[in-house]
């Protein structure tokens, strides 16, 4: 047993060698929220002619900004920059190098404090009056909540695998709502980053392993890319956030922690154009979970199902939407096309 632990730790150490630094063109910034938390923001200037507003990219749960810039090839940030769009990545509080404030952090903090600060900072630095936004998974839920409560400064958005309802009778829900909630405290954290770091060397060691089954589809993402994501693209999950999502599983409601805000109901008031993207084999944000958000939105809105039956070369899982080998051509280009069609004319 001891030898196994030592081996895993040793392998994890080796795995760190593969961690990649940000490119020289990436500019590091810090934005301060209205409750005093400093957030990590990274700017990628547009390459060549500027063709539209800046794009702010936000990661999902248990993740950080590096999801949007894994390496030179698998980087939504660098890809948008190469298309003439200034791109910004952000790490929500408690992830990446952003501050981890004392006390409880919930999902509500992300849209109430973090996103407004990031939007204002990017608008100020770029000089743009409005931004475009891409949110993966919980990053999409954040923009749903933000816009549903009257959030400003985002002219168009795309959500990738973002659920608004997660009670579909699965055994994972049962495990989370009956057992998971008992071992998580609102002020604690789920140590998912450590788990990811320790198990990263095992990625690719077995075909059809549990990580492949849950997070990605080897048809679309290489085990090596996912291994690197686990090493430097993951973060612990704040206990309050985990409990809020567990409550979603139990009640079916997409609501604030104190239950006073029904985000799903308020999404009907959203008038910002939103492209809602789902992946057929997403086992974390199942297609009905993502479609629920699409149905709740007021519109204008568009639905995009990523599947071989719509022309992709492989089926996509949850993480394939951001680090998939062909995501630039099969997903991101469609997001950019949506943004271009909804770009507001600058005065």
């Amino acid at each position, binding site marked *: 047993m001891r030898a196994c632990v030592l081996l895993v730790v040793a392998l994890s150490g080796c795995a760190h060698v593969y961690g990649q630094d940000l490119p020289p063109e990436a500019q590091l910034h810090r934005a301060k929220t209205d409750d005093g938390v400093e957030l990590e923001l990274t700017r990628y200037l547009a390459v060549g002619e500027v063709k539209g507003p800046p794009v702010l990219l936000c990661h999902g749960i248990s993740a950080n900004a590096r999801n949007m810039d894994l390496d030179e090839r698998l980087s939504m940030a660098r890809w948008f920059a190469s298309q003439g769009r200034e791109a910004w990545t952000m790490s929500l509080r408690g992830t990446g190098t952003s501050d981890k404030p004392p006390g409880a952090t919930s999902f509500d903090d992300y849209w109430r404090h973090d996103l407004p600060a990031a939007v204002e900072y990017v608008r100020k630095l770029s000089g743009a009056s409005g931004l475009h936004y891409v949110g993966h998974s919980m990053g999409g839920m954040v923009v749903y909540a933000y816009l549903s409560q009257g959030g400003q400064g985002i002219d168009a958005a795309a959500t990738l695998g973002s659920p608004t309802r997660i009670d579909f009778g*699965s*055994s994972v829900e049962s495990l989370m709502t009956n057992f998971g909630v008992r071992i998580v405290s609102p002020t604690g954290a789920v140590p998912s980053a450590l788990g990811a770091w320790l198990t990263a060397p095992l990625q690719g060691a077995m075909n059809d392993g549990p990580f492949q089954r*849950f997070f990605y589809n080897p048809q679309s993402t290489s085990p090596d890319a996912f291994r690197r994501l686990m090493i430097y693209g993951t973060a612990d999950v704040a206990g309050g956030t985990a409990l809020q999502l567990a409550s979603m599983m139990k009640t079916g409601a997409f609501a604030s922690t104190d239950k006073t805000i029904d985000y799903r109901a308020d999404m009907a008031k959203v008038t910002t154009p939103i492209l809602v993207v789902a992946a*057929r084999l997403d*086992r974390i944000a199942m297609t009905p979970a993502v479609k629920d958000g699409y149905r709740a939105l007021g519109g204008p809105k568009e639905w995009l199902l990523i*599947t*071989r*039956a719509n*022309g992709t070369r492989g*089926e996509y899982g949850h993480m394939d939407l951001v680090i998939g080998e062909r995501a630039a051509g099969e997903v991101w280009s469609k997001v950019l096309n949506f943004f271009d069609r909804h770009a507001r004319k600058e005065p």
Partner: protein
Amino acid sequence: MIALFAAIVLAAAPSSVVTSHRKVVAEDGAALALYRYGSSASRLPPVLVIVDLGFDRSLADPLARFLAERGRTVFVAELRGQGASASGHSLRSLIHLDLPAITKVIGEPVQLIAHGYAGSLAMAAVGHELQVSRVVAFSTPMSPEPPTELQAWFLSDGARFSSLAASPEGAEIFSQLFAMGSALRRGGTRDLSRAMAAELLAWLQTGDLPLDDGTSVLARLHAYDTPTLMFLGLANAWAPSEACVLLRERSRASVQLRSFSRFSDGEDFAHVTALQGASAPSLIFGDVEAFLR
């Protein structure tokens, strides 16, 4: 000890299920095939199984046998256009003509097991042409999603299942649409008529199917109030789960959902694997039997 072991083995072995079939004639003269599994002595209501358009009763065979072995009388109907039944030229006639003819023979109320779009039609008939006490639904979109590119092509091409059996490319398309990579056999299918394929495509494109009595499937969905257990197939590319869950959102019924994933259950389930996959008996059939008991 040996005798006890032998008794356990015998008890666990599948019993032979008595099956029979008969012809049912609809009001317009169309002949329909109706298959019975198990004896008619059961005190519980009969179970009526409707499998999806393009498939025949063999798709339901494992589930029908499973239930019959547990004392249920199960009827698997082949509606017009399916299996050995007469040709079909209208989806609406399945509701207005076929289901009344079948229930006249097997009696009411029934417990319904509905699969796919034909199952959706049967669910639209509940409370109208069909009196039902409980429903088990396998991927039944009563308000379908717009078709994927592959679905649109297949239906525009006349939903020719026979063409999918003719080549490796066809096998790949069948797998994508109905089995998501599973190597399940493609037997037990029949081409849809051009008219039915066009009607199904229009249903997917518009999200609703007008019926002859002035209502529509969607209008009937809003009034649907029969307790239902619904199985969702994450990998179902033919009747996707994002369309099926609208039953919970928009009907008045108590709807229990069950979903599976390859991560937690070893199986995502596609359109045919939910009824014929290797893990369907252990993950699904027991819940079906318990819900209907």
